[in-house]
């Protein structure tokens, strides 16, 4: 389906180019929902200017990008707009190819299961048809490229686009089955911001599944592969970190990048949960609550992997969503990445319970963010509580969205093994709840 994809890319590039040339570009690159201290382009320019003046770019609290990205931006600093568009294009194409391969796998498994007659007879309406599976990759690419969040993030020249590209390439390599490349891209993604390390578990599970190694802690083959993969991941991470040391000749970047992400010193409002809480936190308790908030990102990996060990790609989607919601400096670019995956689970639509409310909440909050910001900062008639309320509501909406899809996925799996019309022991109709 190269032609529709090309058309889509051209349309997306046109929209971005039009917005780049308009006066909105300046406005959007100032918005706190779109850029955070970690991925603002202004800071990149500032950091590189400091480097040209012979000063370490990490001096002062301005620049929080990793040295390898300094190397990249050093060449492309004058062509930022094109690079952002190319990054978006790479992400879209990577997601397209990944979802295509995944859908092929899904269809193949479904075909074998149908031939082996493993599904109850009333579940035939739950089957995914080839027609819808055919169009899903294009929908994924469309969801990513034409999503207003992505467009805003690209027009603001936020470096989130490049981070998304690395994560998308990681997903592509994992789904294609190449362990080395997957480990390398995962190491790159972790090197950029620490949170993608939680994607180690779904990638591992997927690769094990692909190699037909059962996920059983007592088997030696499991541990062998796990160690191999972990070794590749840690090895490439070490190599990348060492290489970054050689770029500037100092370890300055570690406190500036990772210390910054983990200890959250900058409390500029954004769409995340950290800023408001820590603005009023006493110093005495700050470390404790930082740990609590940061653990939130990593905490759901193990339980989710145990529950979803047969469905690693869905686990990957959930993990990316959890990272985007609970990371220390989220922006709309991170949200765009996991929202791009939603068409893959479009067959779950009949089981989604809160989709109307969630979409209303997300739409309303996205519209209210600039309004309440204006009221707070410019008009002076609101205060930070208003903006934080919308932030909270937005995050609640996202969490509800993710958990709704989780419920729908598990419910479909349950129906596929137990039949569509569930009956309790006495024969009356039963309903499924997610406890």
């Amino acid at each position, binding site marked *: 389906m190269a032609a529709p994809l090309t058309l889509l890319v051209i349309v997306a590039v046109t929209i971005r180019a039009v917005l780049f040339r308009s006066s909105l570009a300046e406005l959007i690159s100032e918005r706190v929902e779109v850029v955070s201290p970690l991925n603002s382009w202004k800071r990149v320019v500032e950091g590189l200017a400091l480097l040209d003046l012979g000063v370490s770019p990490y001096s002062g609290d301005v620049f929080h990008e990793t040295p390898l990205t300094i190397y990249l931006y050093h060449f492309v600093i004058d062509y930022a707009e094109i690079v952002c568009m190319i990054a978006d294009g790479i992400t879209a194409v990577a997601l397209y190819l990944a979802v295509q391969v995944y859908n092929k796998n899904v269809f193949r498994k479904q075909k074998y299961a149908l031939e082996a007659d493993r599904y109850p007879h009333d579940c035939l309406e739950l089957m995914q048809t080839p027609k819808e599976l055919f169009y899903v990759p294009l929908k994924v690419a469309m969801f990513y490229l034409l999503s207003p969040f992505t467009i805003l993030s690209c027009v603001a020249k936020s470096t989130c686009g490049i981070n998304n590209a690395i994560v998308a390439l990681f997903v592509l390599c994992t789904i294609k089955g190449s362990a080395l490349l997957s480990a390398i891209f995962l190491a790159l993604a972790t090197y950029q911001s620490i949170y993608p390390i939680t994607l180690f578990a779904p990638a591992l599970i997927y690769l094990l599944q692909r190699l037909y190694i059962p996920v059983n802690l007592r088997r030696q083959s499991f541990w062998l592969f796990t160690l191999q993969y972990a070794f590749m991941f840690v090895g490439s991470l070490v190599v990348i970190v060492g290489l970054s040391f*050689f770029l500037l000749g100092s370890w300055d970047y570690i406190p500036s990048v990772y210390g910054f992400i983990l200890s959250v010193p900058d409390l500029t409002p954004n769409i995340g949960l950290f800023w408001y809480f820590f603005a009023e936190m006493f110093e005495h308790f700050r470390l404790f609550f930082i740990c609590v908030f940061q653990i939130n990102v990593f905490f759901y990996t193990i339980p989710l992997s145990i529950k979803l060990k047969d469905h690693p790609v869905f686990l990957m989607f959930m993990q990316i969503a959890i990272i985007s919601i609970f990371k220390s400096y989220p922006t709309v670019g991170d949200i765009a990445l996991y929202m791009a995956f939603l068409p893959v689970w479009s067959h779950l639509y009949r089981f989604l319970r809160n989709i109307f409310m969630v979409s209303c909440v997300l739409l309303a909050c996205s519209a209210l963010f600039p309004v309440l910001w204006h009221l707070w900062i410019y008009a002076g008639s609101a205060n930070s509580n208003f903006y934080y309320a919308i932030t909270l509501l937005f995050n609640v909406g996202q969490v509800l969205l993710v958990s709704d899809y989780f419920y729908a996925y598990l419910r479909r799996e349950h129906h596929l093994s137990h039949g569509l019309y569930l009956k309790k022991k006495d024969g009356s109709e039963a309903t499924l709840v997610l406890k």
Partner: protein
Amino acid sequence: GWKRGSSFLPGIDVTDTKLSTSAFLLLHQARAERFFRSDHTNNWAVLVCTSRFWFNYRHVANTLSVYRSVKRLGIPDSHIVLMLADDMACNHRNPKPATVFSHKNMELNVYGDDVEVDYRGYEVTVENFLRVLTGRLPPSTPRSKRLLSDDHSNILIYLTGHGGNGFLKFQDSEEISNVELADAFEQMWQKRRYNELLFIIDTCQGASMYERFYSPNLMALASSQVGEDSLSHQPDLAIGVHLMDRYTFYLLEFLEDIHPASQANMNDLFKVCPKSQCVSTPGHRTDLFQRDPGSVLITDFFGSVRKVEITMETINLTPHTETALAYVDQLPVAQIIHQKPKQKDWHPPDGFILGLWTLILLVFFRTYGIKHLKHIF
């Protein structure tokens, strides 16, 4: 010499032909050399009143009385930066509009007809004050709002308002601290914006404001010590407010006796307003000042008089090489003019580039097989 404003050369009468020409020339030469060796060629004054509201009438009157004195003694309006935070003369509550009195019973109107206020009302902020001092103003600022001093300027800075231990309140909404002020003066020194600076402050606990000075050639006077309040002088029952503060009232009285040729020096100024008259103890600080205060004339700071003598004789001057004070980090002139750093672009180290691309190539060949090698080479 000329800078002292004397209108004749004492003891020498140019029409006296009995004196030989060479001795005459020698004397001129000595005076000319003394003039060109002195580091003081012009005077500036920055007079600031930081309080607003009608009941702070006395602060505006303070500032205007010092303004009046320096103008009378010769500093022109172009060399005075007058900052008044509120308009008392045309205030609704002023029963005698267009006047600001310093003595009760309308004895002395310090407002007059020719007051030129440079910063008025809400323009008097800490930021603007510091920008005036350091010269870092936006390019659109008019000349009347700039302190265009150079390294031969003697500057008088007078501040009045409400203050406390280590701060001075501006406009009832912000403060300037003594540290900020000291740093501003240091900036002025490093940018060679003054030769000598006299700082007078009339607020409560005013001595705390000059505690932190560390730049050379600063002399400071304050109306009260730390822990003491500066008190106001007398109310006028017709106007309904206190008209002046005690320190500035007696300062004004002292200055009224000074004329442009006066030889009164700083030691007399330090005696102004003793505790019996002022109730607070005025303080002063001269440790940063190079010259002995007894040799510093009042008119060095409060006045600015030029008396020009025209002579038909040529006077040879010897070049003057020794400097009394060296500026910090003095650069040669060529470097001062072209001080923009050369823009060298940063390049990543070669080892890094080599390592990175080797790794990328290794990964590529590991993933896609060695067979691609033959297509490349």
